[in-house]
């Protein structure tokens, strides 16, 4: 067996110079410190994205977009297609875990100040991918064309319609008309399986190339230590095998979730039926949804909802541009203010999400 592997390696190496790659990987090291565990969440996010791509392609073999076909095709996948239930459940669960892993990855990068020079572009591509992940979630939620998804999309696009100036055209663009209809479903399907994956792949490529090119960021203060004193671990095979081990654990968790908590399909959407009680968005939008509920109808001269949306938009924009305004971290100095903002954001998201969930 070993002989065969060696022969195969030599055959490939003759053609694509694998030795160069092995040599490059052999020189890659991962810094070791008390926060090294957070490095794994980037890999977990990547793994979950790969699962999404694979299960998404499998679902595409049977899914039919359209007002009169979407729900029935998912029903068919769930009940008639061999292991269709498993693929759909894994796709739905992974979507949520992917956003959770990406969120943890984002916050770990934030608190480690890993966005500081020279990794500004890595942060930007990562953040754009995170926003795209949310868009993936929003567009994918409608695809089964069930009651909850229909009304959540209606509420979601309604909120988008409130944005000053661009809101109304944006809402019409998202809905492909004034109302959520079969045309909206087709549009969301197009976004979900073609537009978003295309953009995401480009961003992911840039992100991964940058990570390989620049290596893993070291926490502030570690740079002061002498290079010889810094602890590190070879990326290949040590870190990669550990990554793989974690991926296997995540895969196991996914299988358990898919079997014990299969993703329900609910009832087919009926645009003429009244909205069922308890309509709420997916958990990752819940803190914003809940906040909008608390904002009074009128704030000074501004409509409460418009104020809320502008506030979130502005906060998101500031968050995206943090490498450019956190100058202290870029200079290698501690910035406690950024830490306090991060802690506040985490607490805010957690509390509002819990309240929204229990409401």
């Amino acid at each position: 067996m070993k002989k065969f592997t060696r022969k195969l390696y030599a055959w490939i190496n003759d053609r694509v110079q694998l030795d160069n790659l092995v040599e490059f990987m052999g020189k890659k090291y991962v810094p070791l410190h008390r926060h090294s565990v957070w490095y794994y969440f980037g890999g977990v996010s990547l793994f979950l994205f790969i699962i999404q791509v694979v299960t998404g392609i499998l679902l595409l073999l049977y899914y039919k977009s359209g007002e009169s076909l979407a729900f029935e095709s998912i029903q068919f996948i769930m009940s008639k297609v061999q292991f269709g239930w498993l693929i759909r459940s894994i796709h739905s669960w992974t979507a949520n875990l992917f956003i959770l892993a990406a969120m943890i990855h984002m916050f770990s990068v934030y608190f480690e100040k890993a966005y500081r020079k020279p990794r500004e572009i890595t942060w930007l591509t990562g953040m754009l991918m995170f926003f795209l992940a949310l868009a993936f979630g929003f567009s994918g939620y409608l695809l089964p064309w069930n009651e909850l998804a229909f009304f959540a999309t209606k509420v979601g696009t309604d909120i988008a319609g409130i944005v000053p100036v661009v809101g109304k055209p944006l809402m019409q663009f998202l809905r492909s008309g004034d109302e959520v209809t079969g045309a909206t479903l087709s549009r969301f399907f197009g976004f979900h399986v073609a537009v978003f994956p295309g953009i995401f792949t480009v961003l992911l490529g840039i992100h991964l190339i940058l990570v390989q090119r620049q290596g893993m960021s070291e926490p502030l203060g570690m740079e002061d230590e002498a290079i010889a004193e810094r602890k590190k671990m070879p990326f290949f095979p040590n870190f990669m095998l550990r990554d793989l081990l974690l991926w296997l654990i995540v895969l196991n968790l996914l299988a358990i979730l898919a079997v014990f908590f299969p993703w329900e399909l609910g009832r087919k959407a009926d645009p003429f039926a009244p909205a069922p009680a308890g309509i709420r968005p997916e958990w990752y939008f819940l803190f914003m949804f809940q906040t909008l509920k608390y904002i009074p109808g009128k704030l000074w001269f501004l409509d409460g909802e418009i104020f809320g949306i502008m506030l979130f938009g502005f906060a998101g924009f500031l968050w995206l541009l943090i490498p450019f305004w956190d100058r202290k971290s870029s200079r290698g100095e501690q910035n406690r203010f950024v830490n306090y903002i991060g802690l506040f954001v985490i607490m805010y998201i957690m509390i509002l999400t819990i309240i929204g969930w229990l409401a």
Partner: protein
Amino acid sequence: MKKGMFALLIFLPALFQFARAAGGDQCFTCHEGLGDKESAGYKHDIHFAKGITCAGCHGGNAKSEDMEKAMDKDAGYIGVPKGDDISRACAKCHSDSLKMSSYGATIPTNQWELLRTSVHARLATNGQEQIVQCITCHGVHGIVQVKSPASPVYPLNVVKTCSKCHADAAFMRSYNPSLPVDQEEKYRTSVHGQLNGKGDPRPAVCSSCHGSHNILAASDVKSRVYPVNIPHTCAECHSNPDYMKSYNIRTDQFAQFSRSVHGVELMEKHDVSAPACNSCHGNHGAAPPGVSSVSKVCGTCHALNADLFSASPHKKAFDEKHLPECETCHGNHEILAATDTLLGTSSGAVCSRCHTQTVSPKGFAVAGMMRALTDSLALDEHTAIALLSEAEQKGMEVSEAKFKLRDVHQARLQSRTVVHSASESQFRSTVDKGIAVAVGVIGEGRQAIDEYYFRRWGLGIATIIITIVALSLYLTIRRIERRQRTSTGTNFPMK
């Protein structure tokens, strides 16, 4: 003494007239002198008896002997009131309880208010006034008390009074072309109408059911004859033992109907497609359906059952024994939801009332067989429901099977209809179709539950495999790192 009394009786009207003239009703004195019909009629009017002068309605100064002064507009003279002013003139006193009590009247004072909310208060075709004024029903210049047999609204006269308009096709066409105009004709054929025609004022007349001043369209939910309210309206008389005593009629119909499947649907669930009293008895031509017509009455809604029964061998047997068709098995006012227990030969079954093992062994056997079949279908349906419910609770997708389950239930309902044919083969065919679908659904339910356990086992095996791979990976990592430590001579992690 007797002579004195006789003289008093002869001269009393003259004295009364004298007293009126002295009291100031110069209008009446002059008009009577002119011999017009208004004053002639007014002499018999209740208002005349109460001392109300012509000016009470027409305004002016009734005390003045001078015609110019008596009919002076400045003195409030309005002449002959027109349109809604007529009813307003009546309401001037009839809506004033103090004024009414001053005349010793105890009648209600909300008639005008009620009339204005009624269907009769809609605008007339001339666009100037409401359709009905007080005088339309009560008359004018000869108004007598309602309880007086001379009143147009006395029970024996009210039907004619209402029919003045309601039997006039040309008039009714102007307001409600779809409303029939044969109510009086039908009424005269009803038990109520026949008794009324014989001079009995107590049976129901138009106002007994529709109300008097507050008459609303039958489609109005507040109407006394809106389907949901009809049983209560009928029960006002028919559940009153004292009122019905002289007619020798039972008074438990309302109580029975309230418990019936029809009553619950109509009065509790407010399903207006459910029958009310008039659906079976008729409304204006109300009478109990006879033995020969009861199936036709039930058949207006339960058409298929009635058709099947008419074509069945039971039809001839029931006719020969003069048994009312539907009522014999289902009862009349207290018709309960038909369950499978009605069928068969057990104690609660109606078949065994005639088909005993000794008198009618064939019928007895067929009834038993039908019950066995329907029980079998019911059992299969329950099994299928339980299995699908279990599968659903386990998170399995069984919506298609659940959809098929509706066919099983449909077959059960259909079998309850087909049973009226009393045909063994027809019944068996219907039930068999249901059983075939139920068996399929049961199979799908079991398959879903088996699939659930297969998934559990699959997960268990997959978990074991993944765990073994993960453990091997962990051991590999340890082995590699041990080798690295040995080869580099440093402690891992590397420095």
